[in-house]
Every structure is written in C-alpha cells, then in structure tokens.
C-alpha cells in the first residue's frame, strides 16, 4: 500500500536527460574592408499586396545572432480617396516600422517613434525620384516596410563613434522597396539600391590602445554594427546604377574635405556607391527571376488552357 498523501517518485528509476551538445560557435574570419555580405532577396512573397519583397542578410556565427531582415509590400497605384485634392501625379507614401520584437535587448512600442518617421521620410525621398509618378494621376502608391530583425546599433551617436545600425536598415529598406515596386509593375526610370560605407578605426591587434598612435581610419564597405571598431563617420546613398545618379545621401560624423588634407567625404560617398552598385546586381537577379517566372507561368497557362478546351 503506497502512501497516497505523498507524491512518490516512480518505482523504477528514470534516466537523466542528456542534451545534445551546443554546436561550438565557428569564428568566421573577419571580413576584408571591401568584402560585402551576401544578400537574400526574393519578390512576391506577400500575396495580397500588389508587389512585395523580402530581404535578409546572412546570420553571422554563432547561429541565432540577429541579422537584418526586412519585408516590403507595395499597394497601388490605387485611387486616392474622394476627399483628397486633385493631384496630377501619383502620391507616394512610405512607412517604415520596426516590429516590436525586432531589436536586440529592448522591445519597441507599436506607435511609430521619431526614428521610424525619419527613416520613412528618407526612404520616400530616395524612391520618389525613380518612379514615374506622372504616369499615375489621381492615385496613391503606398509602401510598407517592416523590419523583422535588425543587428542593433540603434542607440544614436555618442563620443565613441556614430552608429551604423539605422543606416544599414535604411539601405536595406531602399533595396527591398525598390524590388517590391518593380514587382508591383509600377513604371520606374531605374531601380534604386542602397549602399553603406564607413570610416572605421580599428584598435591595433595586441597593442595597448593608450601607448600607440591611433591608427588611420579605413573605408569599410557594408559595415556591420557587430564588426567592432570605432566608426568615425558613415554614409548611406540611394543610387540608380543604370543612370549613375544619386537619389539620397545621408552622412553622420565629421569628415575632412579635399582642402583640409583628406577627402574623406569623397572616399565615403564613392565607397557607398560601390556597395550600392554591387547590391544592384542582387536586385537585378531578383527582378529577373520574377520576370522569368511570370513568363513561364503565362506560357503554362496558355498550354493548360488549350488542354481544358480539348477535353
């Protein structure tokens, strides 16, 4: 007779739980200053939207480290509400929102804050120049960007250097939104891609930072907030590679210009444009993939339709 007032252990013993070992974090070799990260970009993933796209940067080791993930959806061109005043061109609005769970450490609120508004306006400025808005009178084109995950570096600047997190988000948003606009079939003069470059001062390996002279900053393309080093200044551009034109320039941090000894501003801007040109190749592939898929589908439909008629 067992004691029913007690919770007894099982009569025959149990085996202790053994967890599979945590895979050891593989330390990736640091990226060269001019090496870019790979980008995953795919369009037409949000069925109800006219056009949509998804952008993701590869996750650095160890697995589970936050990386940049964005979705863009484009609605329109659709008629403006009857209350809106007449407008001879399409009205473009862009809204960028961080998901509440997107940032490391701190949760974000649902209500858009000043940072998100600011990025939205910059994104709108970068894209409006590429879209033939005059082709769509009395209509609105709405672009929504949701940041699902980001690498951090959003705290704002301080004495230690500027933060490149927001700049990466903006560059990714420009690329992603441009792919979504193309996916929606909206007339454009060119695709816009975003690129970031930064002047980074890295502490010399093994040396005591106090004794040695500070090393000269180097231009790093596509910098990540996780890379470390002191970011002296950074620039992001929106660039139309087909026309060799800049639609957006945003820089932070003090830069010397040519007559002050260095032409850091030129270096940064050219670096950011180099990044954007490389990103454009990914953008081209994503748009091409979608186009080929569309052609293949329409061909299939035609053949399939014939079959239906025959039966």
């Amino acid at each position: 007779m067992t004691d029913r007032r007690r919770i007894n252990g099982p009569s025959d013993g149990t085996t202790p739980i053994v967890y599979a070992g945590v895979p050891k974090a593989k330390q990736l070799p640091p990226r060269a200053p001019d090496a870019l990260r790979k980008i995953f970009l795919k369009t037409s993933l949000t069925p109800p939207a006219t056009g949509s796209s998804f952008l993701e940067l590869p996750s650095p080791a160890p697995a589970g480290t936050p990386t940049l993930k964005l979705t863009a959806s484009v609605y329109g061109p659709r008629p403006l509400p009857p209350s809106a005043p007449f407008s001879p061109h399409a009205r473009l609005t862009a809204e960028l929102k961080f998901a509440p769970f997107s940032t490391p450490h701190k949760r974000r609120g649902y209500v858009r804050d000043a940072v998100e508004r600011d990025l939205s306006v910059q994104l709108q400025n970068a894209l409006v120049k590429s879209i033939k808005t005059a082709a769509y009178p009395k209509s609105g084109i709405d672009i929504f960007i949701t940041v699902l995950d980001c690498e951090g570096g959003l705290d704002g600047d301080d004495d230690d250097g500027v933060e490149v997190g927001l700049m990466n988000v903006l560059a990714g948003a420009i690329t992603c939104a441009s792919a979504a606009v193309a996916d929606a079939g909206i007339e454009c003069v060119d695709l816009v891609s975003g690129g970031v470059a930064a002047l980074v001062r890295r502490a010399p390996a093994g040396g005591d930072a106090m004794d040695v002279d500070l090393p000269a900053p180097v231009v790093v393309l596509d910098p990540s907030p996780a890379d470390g080093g002191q970011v002296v200044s950074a620039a992001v551009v929106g660039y139309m590679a087909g026309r060799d034109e800049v639609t957006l320039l945003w820089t932070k941090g003090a830069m010397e210009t040519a007559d002050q000894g260095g032409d850091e501003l030129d270096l940064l801007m050219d670096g950011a444009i180099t990044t954007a040109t490389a990103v454009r190749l990914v953008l081209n592939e994503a748009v091409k993939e979608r186009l080929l898929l569309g052609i293949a589908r329409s061909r299939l439909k035609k053949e399939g339709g014939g079959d239906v008629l025959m039966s």
Partner: protein
Amino acid sequence: MAPPTSTTLISPAELSYLRSSLALNPPIRPDARSPTQFRPLVAEIDILPSTNGSARMIWGDGGECVVGVKVEVEPTELTADGKRKNWVEIGVEVQGQRDDDPLGVFLGMTVTESLLTPSSTLTERLAITSRFHWKMYIDILLITPPLSHPGTLLSLSTNLALRSTRLPRLTSEADEDPMFDDDWDASVPLYQASNQLPPITLLVLSVGDNIFFDPTKEELAVADCVLAVSLATNSAKDTPKVIGVRTLESGSGGIVTTAGAKDVGSGGAAVEATSMGGVKRTVVKKIIKESLSVGKEVFGSLQGVVDANH
C-alpha cells in the same frame, strides 16, 4: 520636406520659367540675390531671462524662431557600456503643424545629429563631476509658419542660443555634491571663444550646374537636389568641417515634368529631362564644397552677432 511641393501654388509654366532662369549662366533668382546671398535677417541673443541661453531670429519672409536653452543638474547614470545617453533633449514646435508632422521630425533629427556628432565634445562640457552632469533642454519654437523651409533659420537660431548659454560656476570640490556660485556674472559660457563652436545646418540646392543657398519655397520646388549640410568649426576663422549631410524632398517628383512638357513645348522638355531621377555624384560633391566656404562666412556673421551683444 513635404510643404514645398504640396503647398506651392504656381503653374507648370511658372515653374518652367523659374527653372530655366535659375539654370542660366549667370543664374537669375526671382529676388535678384546672388547664388550665395542670404535674405536679410534680424538676430538677437539673451532675450529670455529665465533661460540659460536664448536667441531669436526673424527672416525677411516673416519666419520667426525663438530658442531657449535650460539646464538642470542630474545624477549621472552611465548605460551598461559606459555611454552618456539622454543628456540633451531637443524639442521642436512648429506652429500650426501637428507634432507628428514629418517637418518637425526632420528638423529635430537634424539638430540632434549635428549636435551629438562624435567629435562635438558637448557631453564633456556638460559633465560636472563624475557623479553629476547638466541635463540640457533645447526648446525650439517656430512662431510664424515660415514661407520657406525653416531648416536654416532654426539651425542658426539654435547656434546663437547655444553660444549665449552660460552655466553656473562650480564652487565645490570635484568629488563632493555639486554647489554653485549664485552670482550670474560669474557664470561660465558653455562654448568658450577659443573652443569648438556649435554646428550650423545650411540648406543648399542645385539647379543644373548652379548652386543656391538660402532657397525660397519656389526655388525648392524646381530644384534637382536639396541637401541639408551640417558644418562645425573650431573658430569663425577656420574652414568648417562637414559633420552631416541629409537629402530633402526636392522638385516635384515628376509633377512639373509632363504637365510642363505639354504646356510649354521645348522648355518643358528640358524640365522633364532633369527633374526626374537623381543627380550625378559630382554635383553632390560640388554642393558640399561650396557650402564649406559659405559656411565659413556664416560662422563669421554669427560671431558678429555674438560680439555685438557683449
């Protein structure tokens, strides 16, 4: 941002005329200014007795901006990584516009970014002891809804207010709780004459090969590219450094284009060719280069305002 295009009530033909006269060599501006000339303005400092520093500026077009700077002692709590966060709070109030209007957000972000750039040394100036610091509140009030973009007006007024800001003199020892001299005449200026000056932000636009400063609303509506260039310098005599560039909404994103082409024929076609799309990178570099020399002059004139008041 949005206002220049959405509220400009001029016809496509007028826009085309304005654009082609600005693209001439030498260019002709509607108010006959030279490309680098600013509109006349009135500036005064130390106007609000209950603030640590204040300034007021009035432009010819009726835009008026009042800036007040107040400080209070706050115990220092460094963030986990030893950073000084939230030492400066900036509020921008534009009369007649909602708080969430993109214009106010843009102005606030521009001022914050240029003030807290890594080389600004502002937080070093605000540190009192290792445990206490001054928390600074900069409140910017645009009293009359300005007819042109208020970016330059706001940044120059903020610069003057910061230049006139004085902090009470510390009388206690370094590791004690801070005590201050209550004699206002003994207070120390936040920005010493020999030190780095607060930043300014200039609006610069390009039309064709020409570059214009202090643009009016109409000029903004026909621009190829509008940049807000933030500059900082150590003294009014040095050439300033670029500490930030932002792009503003410019032109009409295609409004002028087809309408202009239909109405005015070949002149409109020229508009169409340029107002769609971005600008070449050489144009951007030229804009920034020009703003350095103009910025130096502006710093000089601001120095004049400060000197005249002391």
